[in-house]
């Protein structure tokens, strides 16, 4: 069991980091940020959890199988948005087809939100997958080793 201060700090920071990731994700049209940054920040929250409570605990909360599916889902979300615009009669990733009668390019907003969500999903799950596999090869990290 880790030190009390580490435990309390990790618990305190975990939810705000996830919330910040969601803010960065969905506020990317208006401020700096977007899917890539949000995905990394989302993954960082779970990495912090793993560093404090151990990898096995984190894997119970978010198993590798879910991550593998999320990775593929993210890419499919992105490509699927492109296919959807094609089915609606536009070009591949031509978002204006999503809301053809809008006067202020609503379709562009929808399209950007959708593909950024796909990016975020793919990046977050891939980062965690890489972390799980690297960190998972050393079962117990001896405090002396740091």
């Amino acid at each position, binding site marked *: 069991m880790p030190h009390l201060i580490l435990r309390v700090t990790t618990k305190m920071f975990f939810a705000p980091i996830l919330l910040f990731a969601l803010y960065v994700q969905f506020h990317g049209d208006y401020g*700096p940020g977007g899917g*890539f940054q949000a995905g*990394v920040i989302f993954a960082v929250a779970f990495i912090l959890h793993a560093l404090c409570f151990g990898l096995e605990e984190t894997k119970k909360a978010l198993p590798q199988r879910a991550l593998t599916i999320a990775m593929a889902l993210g890419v499919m979300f992105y490509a699927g948005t492109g296919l959807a615009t094609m089915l609606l009669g536009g070009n591949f990733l031509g978002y204006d087809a999503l809301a053809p009668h809008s006067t202020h390019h609503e379709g*562009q907003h929808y399209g950007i939100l959708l593909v950024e969500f796909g990016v975020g999903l793919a990046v977050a799950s891939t980062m965690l997958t890489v972390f799980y596999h690297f960190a998972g090869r050393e079962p117990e990290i001896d405090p002396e080793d740091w």
Partner: protein
Amino acid sequence: MSPQEAPGLTANLLIDLSLLTLLVFVALAMLRSRHLFAVVMLSGVYSLLSASFFVSLDAVDVAFTEAAVGAGISTVLMLAGMLLTARREKPARPRRAPVALLAVAAVGTALIYASLDMPAFGDPDSPANAGVGRDYLERTPKEIAVPNVVTAVLASYRGFDTLGEVMVIFTAGVAVILLLGAGSARGGRAVTDAEEDA
């Protein structure tokens, strides 16, 4: 920044200079240190300093990525990688390599010479800003109507590129799963190093 501002020592210039000096010192410290943990932490510091430098250049999106990926994720991954190997670098015997020194000096001189021809920072007539960059800035409010031009370029004008980037990340994840063996998605068994050797 007002155009009348004196071209001498401004606060911005001082901040830039101190950040760049710190970057050089951190890089030198990384070269000198044999302790891998210290090197990994210093590389995180290096990323964070570059992120601050990007903020001072008004490239907030790049700075954000650098801070999250460079200082955050790669430091953790390097630490996890470091735990699988030795904690200290093998001591290297100092050798003189005149050819390498000459090559480095020549390339360095050429780069510094080339930098004299570079357009001033933020120059609207520089090749990077005059062509497609200005086009994006002018067309984004009319065609995309998204306040952050970086997002408009990334997700809409260059949506194909970004799809490619996501594919690259996906491929990297798949490669790690295949190489480091998590078993199969249907619940197959992971192979450990000991079994492979046997």
